[in-house]
């Protein structure tokens, strides 16, 4: 799921390009992408359609129903599948809304970090010279800092809020994308098609956007899918420490952190959201692996 990251572009053979055009269902690897993507899509839909799945306020306090175990029938006849928490709030509702927050944060931070990192990396690799030196120094400096330690410091600085979590987690990840994009740009700018474009009088921007970017995209997409799981874990860890999503908003990290005080008499508050989260992160990881195998045919697991 992590670690064995993608290689910079510029090394794929023509076979790779051709097989990529075939529909997903046609190959074994493509079907694996679809199969693992289904779980992910289900979670995404549950998150997006949260108010439909949970047509009541997940933060509705009902003290008379507090600390009910999973599957308990409440007084109004409804069944609390995952039980209720210390204030009688429905845990299932919190988990669904937590999925919403988790998907939103992971998705947006990967897009923001991916786009900014790619832009910086391509620019550095393509222009070279002083720009490259400065940008590479910046990337190296950031990578010398353990990412989550930086996130904890930054989050403490700007205070807990949804927007701030997105900002923080974007800041800690752009450098990885920048390094990969720069490697691709360095390899690609020496290729004949770039030279040809330049000979035809294409501007720098055109070469960057129309020639380098499309050819550097595959490893970046692979990296992005692998980063989603990491960002979900990072958001939950920040929220657990009280530095992420602020208290009443339902986030997996927040719910688990609250359940910590009730481990003895209500084990489900802390354990159920974590189990759901593990399953989601696992399926995101499997999806990332499937995407990598599909897009990078030469990778042998």
């Amino acid at each position: 799921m992590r670690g064995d990251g993608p290689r910079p572009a510029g090394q794929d053979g023509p076979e790779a390009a051709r097989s990529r055009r075939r529909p997903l269902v046609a190959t074994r690897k493509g079907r694996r992408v679809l199969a693992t993507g289904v779980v992910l899509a289900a979670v995404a839909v549950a998150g997006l359609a949260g108010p439909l799945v949970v047509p009541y306020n997940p933060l509705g306090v009902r003290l008379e129903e507090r600390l009910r175990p999973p599957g308990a029938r409440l007084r109004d006849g409804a069944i609390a599948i995952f039980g209720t928490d210390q204030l009688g709030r429905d845990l299932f509702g919190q988990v669904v809304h937590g999925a919403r927050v988790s998907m939103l944060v992971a998705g947006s931070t990967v897009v923001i970090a991916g786009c900014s990192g790619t832009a910086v990396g391509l620019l550095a690799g393509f222009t070279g010279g002083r720009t490259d030196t400065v940008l590479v120094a910046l990337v190296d400096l950031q990578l010398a800092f353990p990412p989550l330690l930086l996130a904890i410091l930054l989050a403490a600085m700007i205070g807990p809020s949804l927007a701030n979590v997105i900002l923080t987690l974007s800041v800690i990840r752009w450098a990885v994308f920048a390094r990969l994009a720069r490697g691709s740009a360095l390899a690609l700018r020496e290729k004949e098609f770039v030279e040809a474009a330049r000979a035809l009088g294409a501007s720098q921007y055109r070469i960057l956007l129309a020639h380098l970017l499309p050819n550097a995209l595959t490893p970046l997409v692979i990296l992005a899918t692998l980063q989603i799981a990491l960002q979900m874990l990072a958001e939950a860890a920040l929220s657990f420490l009280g530095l992420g999503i602020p208290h009443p908003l339902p986030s997996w990290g927040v719910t688990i952190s609250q359940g910590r005080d009730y481990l003895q008499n209500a084990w489900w508050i802390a354990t159920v959201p974590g189990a759901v989260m593990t399953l989601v992160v696992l399926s995101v990881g499997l999806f990332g692996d499937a995407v990598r195998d599909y897009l990078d045919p030469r990778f042998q697991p």
Partner: protein
Amino acid sequence: MIGGVVTIIFLIVRVIPGDPAAVLLGTHATAELIAEQRAKMGLDRPLAVQYALFLRQVAVGDWGRSYHEGRPAFAIVLERLPATLELAAAAIAATLVLSVLLGSLAARRIQSTADYAIGVLSLVGQAIPNFWLGLVLILVFARTLRWLPSFGRGTPWHLVLPAVTLSVQLIGVMTRLIRAGIVETAGQDYVRTARAKGLAEPAVMTRHVYRNMLIPVVTMLGLQLGSLVAGVVVVETVFAWPGLGRLIVTAINNRDYPVVQASVTFVAALFVGLNLLVDLTYAALDPRIRYT
């Protein structure tokens, strides 16, 4: 590199909202008292001056005094260091032993049931949020079975749950890598030659296979140090382990700038130092690599 890290930390820490002077004096402080306290702490000076003073202090090893306890921040950090080192060392040791064991077991018969089981386990290990795993372990082994203590530091038994929690994710990553490494090296010609000349299987594994896959393994362990650092902060918080990670979290909550600066810089420096150590290990492992 360390200079840059120090600068980043200074900038981030000084922009944390909330006035430490106000926090220190409590809710009943008057505006004059707070202003006086700010002047005493040097917080009324321009940022550039604060930065220069800070750099001078760092150069002479003086990190200022904790706003909270009044003791030198660096002394507090050093006091917490052994606990963190103990935890990290235990986690790394557990990771190496278990991942080599599991990785070898999986690589012995590729695509066997054991291989698949270990593969699934290592994926799950990477997907589990460590703070949640910590709570589950406390629930099972400390609260329900009452085999192990749930928090604090002291006997070796106190170390078990935090170390396990911290290492599970690393074990997941490393097992996968070690399996792949063994499978790749085992297919090499020199391994076939070693077997063909009648070398016993344990000797083939240790002298030819393990030795040659050590470099990628060490590289990977180096790359994982970053997540180990993050894990230390979270796991120490879960288990109330009196180390640097918990110090960082409590110091941030107390707005104790000198302690935050000292502890984060110290951890970051430790991280850079360990990475250097990883690079130097290459030369020891592979005689072809020389640093000039």
